[in-house]
């Protein structure tokens, strides 16, 4: 039968995806690092005389309404994306994983309460929570982080709980319990290491989603604020200029797509590598 060959084929395809994803993500991180020290132009320096120029030799990706260099802004904008996504996913892991672990360890009432809370949080589309949070606290990257972070908490809680439950039924856990170890200790020492792969995969996916989320919030004017360059904000400013300066629409969007694509490929590749059983599952 050809099933094995097909699986092998998909396997090599997946690992090709992993390599491509790794390369794209590495490029993205390298650009972000380089931009810390150097960009072709000062990304916040305005030059009204050169505004709204298309791509040229002097400005590879053109200039914006204020004559700022688009390439430099995209390079510097990567910082905002990395920062928001990292912290937001960190919040999700920091609060969601303990909650999920607790739910799986205790079951019963605490489990029910945590899962209902997760349902409740999911009932609000995250844009809606973000709009309310920013209305409450004012727009800015910090509030984008909070909004995206809050959304990540139930995601990690559910994944942790779902992945932990089967582990709790395994023999070595029963042995540890028989040896008198407390539930909390077992969760940390035995369960978490066993679900780390799942969490890493989920973190990669959430990182990509956080970058998309940050872009959407900044696009709606709820995220990053000037002069800090941000991809979503660049698209926001480009909206009224679609007809006169299409390059302002195209390039920041491409930056988002390539970054998210790289992270997703990396996540899928890692999933196949770390936990082949999950290969056919999504989400």
């Amino acid at each position, binding site marked *: 039968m050809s099933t094995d060959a097909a699986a092998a084929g998909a396997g090599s395809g997946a690992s090709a995806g992993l390599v491509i994803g790794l390369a794209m993500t590495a490029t993205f991180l390298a650009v972000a690092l380089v931009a810390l020290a150097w960009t072709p132009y000062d990304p916040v320096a*305005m030059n009204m005389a050169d505004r709204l120029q298309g791509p040229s030799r002097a400005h590879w990706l053109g200039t914006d309404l204020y004559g700022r260099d688009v390439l430099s802004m995209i390079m510097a904008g990567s910082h905002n994306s990395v920062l928001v996504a990292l912290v937001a996913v960190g919040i999700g892991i920091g609060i969601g994983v303990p909650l999920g672990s607790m739910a799986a360890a205790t079951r019963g009432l605490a489990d029910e309460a945590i899962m209902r809370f997760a349902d409740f949080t999911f009932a609000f589309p995250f844009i809606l929570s973000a709009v309310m949070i920013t*209305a409450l606290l004012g727009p800015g990257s910090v509030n984008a982080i909070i909004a995206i972070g809050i959304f990540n908490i139930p995601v990690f809680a559910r994944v942790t709980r779902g992945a932990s439950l089967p582990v709790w039924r395994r023999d070595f856990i029963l042995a540890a319990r028989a040896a008198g170890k407390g539930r909390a200790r077992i969760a940390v020492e035995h369960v978490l290491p066993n679900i780390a792969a799942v969490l890493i995969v989920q973190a990669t996916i959430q990182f990509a989603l956080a970058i998309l989320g940050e872009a959407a919030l900044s696009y709606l004017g709820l995220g990053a*604020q*000037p*002069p800090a360059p941000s991809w979503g904000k660049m698209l926001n400013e480009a909206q009224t*200029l679609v007809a006169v300066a299409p390059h302002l629409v195209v390039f920041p969007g491409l930056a988002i797509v390539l970054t998210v694509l790289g992270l997703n490929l990396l996540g899928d590749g890692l999933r196949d590598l770390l936990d082949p059983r999950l290969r056919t599952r999504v989400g």
Partner: protein
Amino acid sequence: MTLIFRIAAILAALPFLAAPALAAKDTLTMGMTLEPPHLDPTATAAAATDEVVYANVFEGLTRIDAAGAVQPALAASWDVTEDGTVYTFHLREGVSFHDGTQFDAEDVVFSFERAMAEGSVNAQKQIFEPIEAVEALDPRTVKVTLRRPTGSFLFDLGWGDAVIVAPESADANRSAPVGTGPFRFERRVAGDRVELTRFEDYWGEAPALARATFKFIPDSAAAAAALLAGDIDAFANLPAPELVPQFEADPRFTVEIGVTEGETILAMNNAREPFSNLKVRQAISHALNRDAIIQADFDYGTPIGSHFSPVHPAYVDLTGTYPHDVEKAKALLREAGYAEGFEATLKLPPPNYARRAGEIIQQQLAQVGITVEIVPVEWAQWLEQVFKGADYDMTVIAHTEPMDIGIYARDDYYFGYDSAEFDGVMEELSAEADEGRRHELMAEAQRILAEDAVNGFLYQLPKIGVWNAAVEGLWRNTPIQANDLTEVRWRE
């Protein structure tokens, strides 16, 4: 049988159907960016409401014309006593409301008392503040007694907030406005348009248009497309300055770049350190480069040097008071004791003009050592924090009310500006009736504000009018928030 009748009716109608192609067109569809929340101009500050109903559906005792001058409207004439405190208005004959009720002096008394009442929700209640009493002497005569002479009273009565409504219909005006104007409210399609039709019993000259539609298109690209496709005949203020060259090059369109009453300023909190220091304010004025700020709005704004409309006859050009000069600005900051500069916040409300100017101002002030943190705020927050609470360092805002230089004399206004000299000039102005002397006082007031560098005076917001080249009679400027259609017609 009915079918035959119908065919006959259609055949009979054919010549008439063809006829309008020969006669001049008598309908107009006008595009607007914002949709009015409702249609009662006496219960909202929304400019969009006035832009639909002012002069078209509702009229006041006086009206403001395209040049910003006061004209008689429902009052055919008036007498003012020597001391300027008693106005006797002689009302027009044969005026009726759109619902058929007759207009008389009682309607004026009702409208004014409604606006002055304790539970009134009139956004410009201060127009009526000087009024001590309103009396109907007879059905055609109204006597208004003022507490003190008020030089701008007749102008103020021309505002949309002071239109005359009828007691029978006033409460329903939000959804079904009933006025005395040349156009009758026909219907509203929420989110899309308001339709008006000619009012056949209008007291004055009948308008050339039989129907007028106001269509609300918030997106600039969609607005431009609708104009090009002929879906709309005119856009009073196109929100897309970047697209203007395209229309200027197209012979099918007329482009009129006028000015609004919106003085765009970098407001500073004069009551707060370091803006309480004149030298600091002067330094900021020198640091600002108006040309760059206007360029970000595609070069259509008119630079201003004080808080006054450049199309007003009393306007004085004071843009040279503090010319753009980075070195001078730095020197002034040193003198003021801020050699190292300082940090300040700049609160920006949502409109594009504010956000764009804000980003540039942040850059310009950075060049003289002032570190500006931009804090974008919603309107609600701007009104609460900046306007009401005066909790701000700087903000960019366009003051769109006509002839509003008097706000600088208000005690608790958010600028925190206090000048006995300016207050004196304004006091004299409000009691002065002689037009020549009034202009002198207005010029004096402008000069004081410019020299005190109260705010960074940036530019007058443009009004970018684009309409079908065959349409005439639309206003070039907006001396008052209105799209007056009474004179609009299609060229033969």
